[in-house]
């Protein structure tokens, strides 16, 4: 039998080849190389499914495949780590990538875009990098592909480079994430210095070494006699810097709304479903390390909860379809971070999965609307599209219900589990409880802006000429939407924990069992193991587990319905008006994103001022000294040469004087005058 794991490199390399083909020969191929990309991602998707089946068959894979630098001090390697987590992520990434490639046929090719080979090359390279990141078996490899993913994001956001906006947004995206990646890189280097390895899994992996060292049975390096627990917290927070940057968490989230300058399929693939997920995935990947440091977990939870609420409030006032989705993305990743910080490893992965599908769906749906609206994204120009584009409407609605967390759509299950985990663990942990409350507050806000978006776009009367006569979309748009729409409805059923707990059914929490290595996996990388290591204990309200589950679910569902209801009242009318004026001064603050962009621009300008000062200093003082030495020499020379009068008699006189001086000197030394 052929081993599925032997094809792990192929999963990564297939899209890479499609990148090479599109780059080298894209302009000679039909559709600008799109079919190569579709074939490659389809191949990767099938291989991923096969690999997932192999994992389900009770096996796992953790091999070093290539030695990058074989030093004695550290060995830097590339390898593949296939366990339930990465197998799941492989399937998600390849599936979304495949659907986005197909969708691009409709969004890019049919719309007559130029530069398609570059576009498909970018998508191919992105998919390859992302898959490389997913299968990475050590932190260094993860970092390297993390950066490549950032490059692709830069290239694709700046796809329309002839306009002024996209290059600027691309720069911002790369720079802001780079700022986070700086901390990540310091973290990687620190992990190497501390443990001598960066492997994720196995006996000699750094989470295992850290665990052993904390238990007292192992010795690791710490700088300057720092206490081990403190140092591990510092390392964890450093790596977290990269996560905050890529997963667009506060305060490094500002790049993501700007990244909407990129083509919409790119937004769906990169800025919703996969790249932004990289940060969260990384935390999940090295969760065995994070659970060892309670402070880091608390920070993660707090950042996550805060971001969830913070981003949701900004989504309320946006006018453009993709902007609303961008802020909802930030907010949803905040939930995942909250889950991870709260010890809800499975809940985070669950939300990662459901979110990947419903957010990709929403973005592609938005893309479909944008095609129909001739690239006008302002929701106030839309309205009444429900009748004109039913497929888009119903799939978009499914995605919106999932996003708002309405029973029984996918988002409900995952969001509910996150809040439940945060609640039960937070009852003994005040910081976590704060995160929970912020996450809970974000629920009605999310439902509100989601349905404000739906109602403005699809309901009511058309508010512009294009909305009255939208451009039709083809199969290549409807197909992906239908697939994702179905997934947005059903994905939640893979992990119905509340149902299991309330009804006492056993074994329908498939994702829990999957991530707990029940079918197969790697020792030490299971949710069970993480829970044992983690610092949290559970507390319950209303006397016991089942009531807590019910109360928690009821509260979050009730809040979501309340938000939906408010949106219904305000915006589900024939010709809705802006109600944002009621918010008064807050509206401006929200509309300007709490002036955080201004703050970052201000920082950038101040940095430039400092640079200018440094330049003045360099030219004036440092180079001034150099030129000063030169001027002093020249000046001295020009003074001294005046001795050279050109008068022979003076030369002779000087000669004589010199002779006499010499004689006197000799005489004094020789004692003639004594």
């Amino acid at each position, binding site marked *: 039998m052929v081993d599925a794991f032997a094809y792990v490199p192929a999963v990564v390399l297939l899209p890479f080849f499609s990148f090479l083909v599109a780059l080298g020969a894209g302009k000679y191929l039909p559709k600008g190389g799109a079919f190569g990309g579709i074939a490659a991602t389809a191949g990767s998707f099938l291989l991923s499914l096969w690999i997932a089946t192999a994992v389900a068959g009770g096996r796992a894979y953790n091999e070093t495949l290539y030695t990058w630098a074989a030093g004695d001090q550290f060995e830097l390697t590339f390898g593949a780590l296939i366990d339930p987590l990465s197998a799941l992520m492989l399937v998600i990434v390849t599936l979304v990538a495949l659907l986005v490639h197909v969708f691009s046929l409709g969004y890019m090719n049919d719309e007559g875009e130029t530069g398609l080979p570059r576009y498909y090359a970018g998508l191919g390279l992105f998919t390859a990098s992302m898959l490389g990141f997913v299968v990475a078996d050590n932190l260094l490899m993860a970092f390297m592909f993390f950066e490549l993913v950032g490059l692709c994001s830069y290239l694709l956001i700046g796809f329309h480079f*002839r306009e002024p906006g996209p290059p600027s947004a691309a720069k911002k995206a790369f720079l802001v994430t780079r700022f986070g990646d700086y901390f990540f890189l310091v973290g990687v280097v620190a992990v190497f210095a501390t443990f001598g390895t960066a492997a994720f899994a196995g006996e000699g992996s750094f989470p295992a070494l850290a665990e052993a060292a904390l238990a007292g049975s192992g010795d690791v390096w710490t700088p300057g006699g720092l206490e081990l627990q403190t140092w591990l917290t510092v390392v964890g927070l450093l790596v977290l810097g990269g996560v905050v940057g890529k997963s667009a968490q506060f305060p490094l989230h500002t790049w993501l709304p700007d990244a909407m300058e990129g083509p919409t399929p790119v937004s769906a693939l990169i800025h919703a479903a996969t790249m932004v997920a990289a940060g969260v995935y990384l935390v999940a990947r090295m969760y065995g390390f994070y659970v060892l440091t309670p402070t880091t977990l608390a920070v993660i939870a707090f950042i996550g909860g805060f971001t969830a609420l913070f981003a949701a409030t900004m989504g309320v006032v946006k006018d453009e379809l993709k902007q609303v989705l961008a802020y909802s993305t930030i907010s949803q990743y905040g939930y995942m971070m909250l889950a991870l910080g709260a010890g809800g490893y499975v809940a985070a992965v669950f939300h990662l999965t459901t979110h990947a599908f419903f957010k990709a769906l929403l973005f592609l749906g938005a893309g479909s609307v944008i095609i129909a609206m001739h690239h006008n994204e302002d929701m106030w120009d839309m309205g009444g599209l429900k009748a004109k584009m039913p497929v888009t409407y119903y799939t978009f609605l499914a995605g919106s219900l999932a996003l708002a967390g309405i029973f029984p759509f996918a988002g409900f299950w995952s969001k509910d589990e996150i809040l439940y985990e945060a609640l039960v663990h937070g009852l003994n942990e005040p910081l976590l409880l704060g995160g929970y409350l912020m996450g809970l507050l974000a629920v009605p806000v999310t439902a509100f802006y989601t349905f404000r978006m739906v109602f403005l776009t699809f309901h009511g009367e058309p508010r512009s000429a294009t909305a009255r006569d939208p451009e039709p979309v083809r199969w290549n748009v409807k197909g992906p939407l239908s697939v994702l729409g179905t997934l947005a409805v059903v994905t939640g059923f893979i992990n119905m924990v509340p149902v299991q707990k309330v009804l006492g059914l056993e074994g329908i929490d498939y994702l829990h069992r999957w991530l707990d290595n029940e079918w197969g996996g790697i020792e030490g990388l299971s949710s069970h193991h993480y829970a044992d290591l983690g610092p949290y204990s559970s507390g319950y309200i209303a006397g016991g587990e089942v009531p807590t589950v019910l109360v928690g679910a009821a509260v979050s569902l009730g809040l979501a319905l309340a938000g939906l209801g408010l949106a219904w009242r305000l915006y589900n009318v024939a010709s809705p008006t802006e109600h944002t004026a009621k918010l008064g001064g807050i509206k401006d603050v929200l509309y300007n994103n709490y002036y955080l962009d201004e703050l970052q621009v201000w920082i950038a300008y101040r940095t430039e001022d400092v*640079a200018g000062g440094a330049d003045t200093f360099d030219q004036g003082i440092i180079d001034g000294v*150099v030129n000063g030495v030169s001027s002093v020499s020249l000046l001295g020379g020009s003074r001294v040469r005046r001795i050279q009068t050109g008068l022979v008699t003076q030369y002779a006189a000087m000669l004589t004087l010199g002779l006499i001086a010499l004689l006197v000197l000799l005489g004094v030394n020789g004692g003639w005058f004594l």
Partner: protein
Amino acid sequence: MILEALIGFTFLAALVVLLAPNAWAGRLAFALSAVPFAGSLYLWSQFDAVGNALTGGTIAFESRYEWVEVGGRTVSWFVGLDGISLPLVVLTTFLVPLAILSAWTPVDSRQSQFYGLMLFMEANLLGVFTALDFFLWFVFWEAVLVPMYFLIGIWGGPRRKYAAIKFFVYTNAASLLMFIGFMSLTFALGDSIGSLALPEITQALADGGLETWFGISPGRMAMIAFLAMFAGFAVKVPIVPVHTWLPDAHVEAPTPVSVLLAGVLLKMGTYALLRFNFTMLPEQASTLAIPIAAIAVISVIYGAMLALAQKDLKRIVAYSSVSSMGYVLLGLVVFTEYGVGGATFQMVAHGLISGLMFMAVGVVYNATHTRMVGDMAGMADRMPVTVGILVAGAFGYMGLPLMAGFAGEFFIFVGAFGAPSLPYAPVFTALAMFGIVIVAGYLLSAMQKTLFGPFRLETDYEIGPAPFHDVAPLAVLLAAIIVLGVAPDIFFEMIRDAAMPVVEGVSVDV
């Protein structure tokens, strides 16, 4: 004999090209410069040295003839290669043909002299990287300046004379300082050496051969020599605050000369620092570890900040070279396998990447006749391939993984962070690493302003794609950068082998 053949052929080629007619001097020079490259590839394939040439390792292609005897010291023709010098020899012979190719478009007068001087410089550079006798090495070291002076002074920009004289005087004065430092060291060694061969001197120093000389105690002598040589080489590298000749020289030099200046000449300084200061006097180096590391960090951050303030594309790349060389210094001073090895690797990587950047900026300049950031916009529209490679090169400069720059920088960082011989190593390393954010800042904003957005440039002629012979060297360089980034061990393995003895020169109590 093969090294003599390599250097001799290059000298001969320089002479032939100098006498050739201007019309086909460029093509002839390119053809002739391919031969040393082929030769260096042959050297690479036959390379069998183990260890460091200075600390008693086996020397590849060793060849030694006595020349003269002065004051009880034999001066000899003594050349050979080890794992540190071979990559630099390959880098030199690889960059020169590409630089010559990139000169075809911009150099339009006195071509035979231009290419002759380029080849003459290559021959001397090869001499610097292969010589193992101090006297011989010093002759080559100084002789490199001469063609450089003329190349900047004749074919340079409007302020070429100022730049050429500044470059020459500054680096020459520094050489003098270094020469005095080193010679007093050899005098203080007294009878423990019988020649000026570098391995012998290194051995004698390691064995404690320094004697009291003119009332200067051995420890003090070594420290004085270390400081004098450090100051001398620092100018060549260049390290803040003795870096100001570099931007002027780069801005005025024609593109191909900038390529060699940044790609190879700067590496002479770091190579010499490694060979002399850090291999011969490791104790002094580790005594001074904190100030040196501080200088390195300042070079990185300060150089990057200066680059941020520049408007001239060439000046940006020039200052970022200062920044990158700071990493090399940091790698050297930590005395770990990855630190010293990474520093050597970074020399090669930076040689390729800065060469690529200067060349790409030059190709854009050929078309636009301006390098000012504010003067043009949207060049990607007119020169897609060139701009594509320029963007790739810029990302290489920013340390994008799987390109050579990342490998070099990461090796240095990972080697430096936990270095036992440098106090506060994590702090220094983390500070230096912030350079990767600033470098992204200035390169991205420069690219955004010049390459993207709507096309804008006031010219009375049409700007189209660059000719093939301009783009081909860019593509070749990019390919080399990626190959080295994906498989750094093709050089890094031999570098590590040669760096280990240097590292072992410092004993640390962990």
